[in-house]
């Protein structure tokens, strides 16, 4: 049971990152240092390579371990950011939504940021709020897409894109896009199971 869930979740997450790595890199070339797609690809390929090991674990320890893999393999800021999200979720107590809240708080702490700075938090926070309001998975995915698109008009105040100031406006944030891809993949996967 747990093996099914982990294995299929891993496949869904890895597939969406590999399929969209070129787009993530293109977004990052516009307002960052152009390595987001490559970094995420390296991290998620490392997770894919660990699939058998992760499947052998219960869900939350597997999530925590996958987070540590991202920290060690990604090579950019997104490693510790996504890694902190997953490690905090794995370590937290409570149901999936409570764990997700712990993960989002960990990303805020790691990135010293919050909503409105044109980052992955601009997708994570609305998704968390929707989950806490018990939105269904389809609504959550739609909201994530909307929140991702809304980063286009924001001005970056964190990360490399903040060096661009006003010039960061008009580009979707690559971290918001990768977060939305992963949220959508997880929602679709869970939706198919339900």
């Amino acid at each position: 049971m747990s093996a099914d869930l982990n294995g299929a979740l891993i496949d869904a997450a890895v597939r969406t990152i590999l399929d969209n790595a070129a787009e993530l890199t293109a977004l990052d070339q516009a307002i960052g240092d152009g390595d987001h797609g490559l970094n995420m690809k390296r991290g998620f390929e490392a997770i894919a390579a660990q699939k058998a090991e992760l499947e052998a674990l219960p869900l939350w320890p597997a999530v925590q371990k996958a987070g540590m893999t991202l920290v060690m393999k990604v090579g950019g800021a997104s490693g510790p950011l996504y890694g902190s999200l997953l490690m905090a979720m794995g370590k937290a107590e409570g149901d999936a939504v409570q764990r997700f809240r712990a993960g989002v708080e960990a990303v805020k702490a790691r990135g010293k940021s919050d909503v409105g700075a044109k980052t992955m938090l601009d997708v994570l926070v609305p998704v968390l709020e929707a989950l806490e309001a018990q939105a269904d998975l389809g609504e959550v995915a739609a909201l994530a897409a909307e929140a991702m698109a809304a980063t286009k008009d924001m001005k970056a105040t964190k990360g490399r894109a903040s060096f661009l100031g006003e010039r960061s406006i008009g580009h979707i944030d690559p971290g918001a896009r990768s977060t939305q891809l992963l949220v959508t993949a997880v929602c679709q996967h869970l939706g198919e199971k339900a």
Partner: protein
Amino acid sequence: MTQTVSIVIVSHSPDVARGAADMVREMVGEEVAVAWCGGNPDGGLGTDVAKIAAAIDQVYNDKGVALLVDLGGAETNSEMAIEMLPDDRQSKVVICDSPIVEGAVMAAAEAAGGSDLASVRAAAEELSP
């Protein structure tokens, strides 16, 4: 011999990190231990938590370690590496908010005089606006 605060230089580019370390040795001398690292886990531009942790380990002493980092992920990955150290070491490793090359030289010069970690960090951070 008295211990001095050590320096770790973390750049996206191993060439930048090595070059900055060379400048420190040239300008300050050998009495301050300097370690450097750069590059992502595949050897491309980026930073690597494991390499940063190893560099800290290489020069760690109880007087402390000052890290000089370049952009974005170098700082985030360095924070992560520090959090993975044993508890008693974490408070003795700090990231200086300063330009990487100038900060490394200033921090090392301060460290060479036997200053404590807070003074070494302050010397590097004087360079920041």
